[in-house]
């Protein structure tokens, strides 16, 4: 097999052009997930009736099905649900004008939300109850005690798992082509298809992902270190 290195070099800038799309998808999904996982973790910890059952089923279904299937479902249901809704309120918004990226954010955030929720819940439970009691003893109110005593300690526990989930989300963006969103993998698919040099195109993105995810992991590790810097001060 002869490797067409000329094609690989020519295709590389075309592929790198789509790196921001990949990053945007991952970032959007992570931000959505952060909001909802905070809410869901709160529901689970407070044992809000009915809602906590719904959240539990949600977590179980998401953990139990392939991401690609979740994407199919969102890509199929979300537009028709939205359309039904928009027609009902006579908003005049055309469903076909909504960018596919929005569905991709939603689909990618489903599993990120599930894993974040688990991480946050476990982390908050891991903080010794005596800490909260001590905070009350010195006169802190519940929200202050949560923000200043519980949360900083819980972050240290939750971060490694959350960083893993972020990396997994970046990897999962490679499935966005199933929702007709062109990111790095989608670009390679198109370039490979036009020239019939699939292997070269995929080898290109192999290196792109390798560098990209390696860099993201490195940055997340740094962020993690910075966020738990209090540990050094107390040690």
């Amino acid at each position, binding site marked *: 097999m002869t490797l067409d290195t000329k094609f690989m070099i020519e295709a590389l800038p075309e592929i790198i052009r789509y790196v921001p799309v990949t990053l945007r998808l991952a970032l959007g999904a992570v931000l959505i997930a952060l909001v909802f996982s905070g809410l869901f973790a709160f529901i689970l910890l407070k044992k809000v009736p009915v809602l906590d059952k719904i959240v539990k089923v949600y977590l179980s279904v998401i953990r139990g099905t392939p991401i690609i*299937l979740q994407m199919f479902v969102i890509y199929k249901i979300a537009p028709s649900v939205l359309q039904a809704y928009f027609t009902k309120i006579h908003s005049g918004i055309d469903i076909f004008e909504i960018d596919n990226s929005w569905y991709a954010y939603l689909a990618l955030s489903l599993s990120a939300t599930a894993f974040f929720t688990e991480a946050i819940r476990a982390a908050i439970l891991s903080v010794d109850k005596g800490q909260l009691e001590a905070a009350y003893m010195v006169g802190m109110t519940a929200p202050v005690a949560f923000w200043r005593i519980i949360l900083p300690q819980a972050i240290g526990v939750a971060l490694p798992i959350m960083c893993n989930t972020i990396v997994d989300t970046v990897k999962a963006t490679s499935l966005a082509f199933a929702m007709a969103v062109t990111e790095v993998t989608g670009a390679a698919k198109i370039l490979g298809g036009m020239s019939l040099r699939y292997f070269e195109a995929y080898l290109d993105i192999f290196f792109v992902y*390798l560098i990209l995810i390696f860099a993201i992991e490195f940055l997340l590790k740094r962020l993690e270190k910075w966020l738990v810097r209090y540990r050094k001060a107390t040690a």
Partner: protein
Amino acid sequence: MREFHFEIMVEFYFKILPYLTITITYVFFSLLFGFLLGALTAYFRLSKNPVLKAISGAYITVMRCVPSIVFLFLVYYGLPGLMRTHFGIDMNDVDAIVYVIITFSIMLGAYTSEIMRSAYLSVDHGQFEAAVLVGMDSLTAFRRIIFPQALHAAIPNVGNIIIFMLKEGALAYIIGLQDVLGRGYYLNSLKANAYSMETYLALTLIYWPLTLLLEKAFRELEKRHSIAFLIQKKSSGKEVKA
């Protein structure tokens, strides 16, 4: 929204279900080869040879940083050409499942090596020294002292990796394999994608209970394999005998 056809969903469910054997086949073989490769990698990683250590470390990093789908494409489009030009082997008639097993064996090799390494390191080294001190040779000490304890530490992670493989393997539909998801995709496309919702619900009702079952089984296994449980079983067994 279009109305939901329950009977179509049931029909699809039972049409897809037999293809679970395909899914189980690639999950099984990927895990088998993955664990063999992983054991070798973990052994290299823990060895004192710096070259082997660096190679296994690089292998693990690369596998962790690349999405499975990209690696699946590389194997699917690259391996036949490589085999033809370098070994003269024609892979045209090879079934798609072979590419899936090769891809995920290599990926799981990296993941499982980390599981095995951390399980091995979780056992206190003093245990090994004590075993050698009472006269065991190092292989027996590993087999009878280290391995059972490392196995217990690894159980939850092994459960997770099986579930990971079950779900990640669904990507095989992209190279045309008809496993559970692939069959659903095919059946749906035969009907011009008119029954997508029914198909996806049928698929969910196959994958979801299966993962629940696996999760439960591994939780139970972990409990049964815990030292407290084993001691209890042993002592209660003695009472029966006495």
